[in-house]
């Protein structure tokens, strides 16, 4: 304590001691400190403390001018501290302002995040509503299509696991052994195409024959007939990517082939509105005709419209008298 007091006494003694000429160190320090704080970027934040520092420095300068060195040194010492206080108060306000701005920015960021989240949610809701509307529209279109096709003469509609199966008798569509559509058939198919235009389901056209003749011939004939129907429907506005055809030959009879009535029922074309893409395919082993039918998409523009097609010549059974195909 004694040493501390002695040191303080020495320091104070220097301050209190008289001097003249050069400005005392205390005044030089005070001027420098004031210069720094008054020109710092945060000077405007110092408020009245900077003014007080200026007043203290002015008082020290006056004492110095009056050659009252004791007073000048003491006032300069105080002015130096007041400049430090002004800087500290400016720093304090600056730090508080920095914190306030950071919090405000963060708040803004959170609000932007919340807005972005809400917008995402709204977009998702919109997409869901749109999907629901689309699904409802498709359901209504399906129902309307089914109601329309049920009224078309000569077309039998039946729901199955594959989808809605429209069966048209072969005698309605084709002449015997031919794959050219009859004029009446075109009218029926035009009605079918009109009814199915807004239905988004895919269509699988499947040709069937009776069991007369060779399997290969039946396969080719059924495929050619299915393809003729497909091309006609394309020409009536059914989108190409919605429609495929295949020939099943005599592989899937629906009646006994021994009687004329049974064979007539077996000769048919089915238009399957698939419950899901590909669901209309039969479980029966594919015939050559079926394989061909899957590739029966038109390759050129002129194939978009139904073309005159000739079924391959059906091999007539050698032992059995040839029978007329409707």
């Amino acid at each position: 304590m004694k040493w501390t007091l002695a040191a303080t006494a020495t320091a104070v003694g220097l301050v209190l001691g008289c001097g003249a000429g050069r400005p005392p160190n205390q005044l030089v320090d005070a001027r420098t400190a004031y210069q720094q704080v008054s020109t710092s970027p945060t000077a405007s934040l110092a408020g009245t403390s900077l003014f007080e520092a200026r007043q203290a420095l002015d008082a020290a300068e006056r004492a110095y001018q009056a050659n009252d060195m004791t007073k000048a040194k003491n006032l300069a010492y105080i002015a130096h501290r007041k400049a430090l206080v002004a800087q500290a108060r400016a720093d304090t306000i600056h730090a508080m302002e920095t914190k306030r701005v950071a919090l405000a920015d963060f708040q803004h960021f959170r609000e932007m995040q919340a807005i972005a989240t809400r917008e995402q949610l709204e977009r998702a809701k919109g997409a869901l509503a749109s999907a629901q509307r689309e699904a409802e529209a498709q359901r209504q279109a399906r129902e309307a299509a089914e109601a329309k096709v049920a009224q078309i003469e000569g077309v039998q509609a039946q729901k199955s696991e594959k989808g809605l199966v429209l069966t048209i008798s072969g005698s309605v569509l084709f002449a015997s052994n031919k794959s050219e559509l009859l004029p009446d058939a075109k009218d029926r198919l035009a009605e079918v195409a009109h009814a199915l235009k807004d239905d988004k389901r895919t269509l699988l056209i499947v040709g069937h024959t009776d069991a007369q003749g060779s399997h290969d011939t039946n396969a080719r004939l059924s495929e050619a007939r299915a393809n003729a129907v497909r091309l006609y429907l394309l020409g009536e506005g059914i989108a190409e990517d919605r429609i495929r055809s295949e020939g099943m030959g005599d592989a899937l009879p629906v009646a006994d082939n021994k009687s004329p009535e049974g064979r007539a029922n077996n000769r048919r074309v089915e238009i399957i509105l698939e419950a899901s893409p590909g669901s209309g395919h039969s479980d029966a082993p594919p015939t050559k005709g079926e394989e061909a039918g899957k590739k029966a998409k038109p390759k050129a523009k002129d194939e978009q419209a139904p073309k005159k097609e000739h079924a391959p010549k059906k091999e007539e059974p050698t032992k059995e008298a040839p029978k007329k195909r409707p």
Partner: protein
Amino acid sequence: MKTIMLVAALTTLAGCGAATPVPADKVARAQEAVRRAEESPAAAADPKALAHLQLAKNQLAYARKLMVEGRNADARWVLMRAESDAETAFYLAQAQAARGDAQQTIDAIRQAMSLMQGGSGS
């Protein structure tokens, strides 16, 4: 004889500047400024503030010594200096605390934003 001694004493005191008593409020203000700086929690954490506080305390003790010695004029200046150092210590500590608080807030915000943006690094 007593009268002569008293006059002599007064003359001596007057020669040393003791004729001007130290106002009580000068001592009180210096003491209050030191107390306020000492009670500021941030003062102990800031070396500059701590240095000014120590200067203030030393000068306050020295001013008391000067008063005991009757050097009141010197004591007045030392008390004013003690007060200014104590004030400097207080405001330096306050600024340091404010800077620390702002930095802490900014760090916490950065961490929160990083988490909110999924940038936690996990």
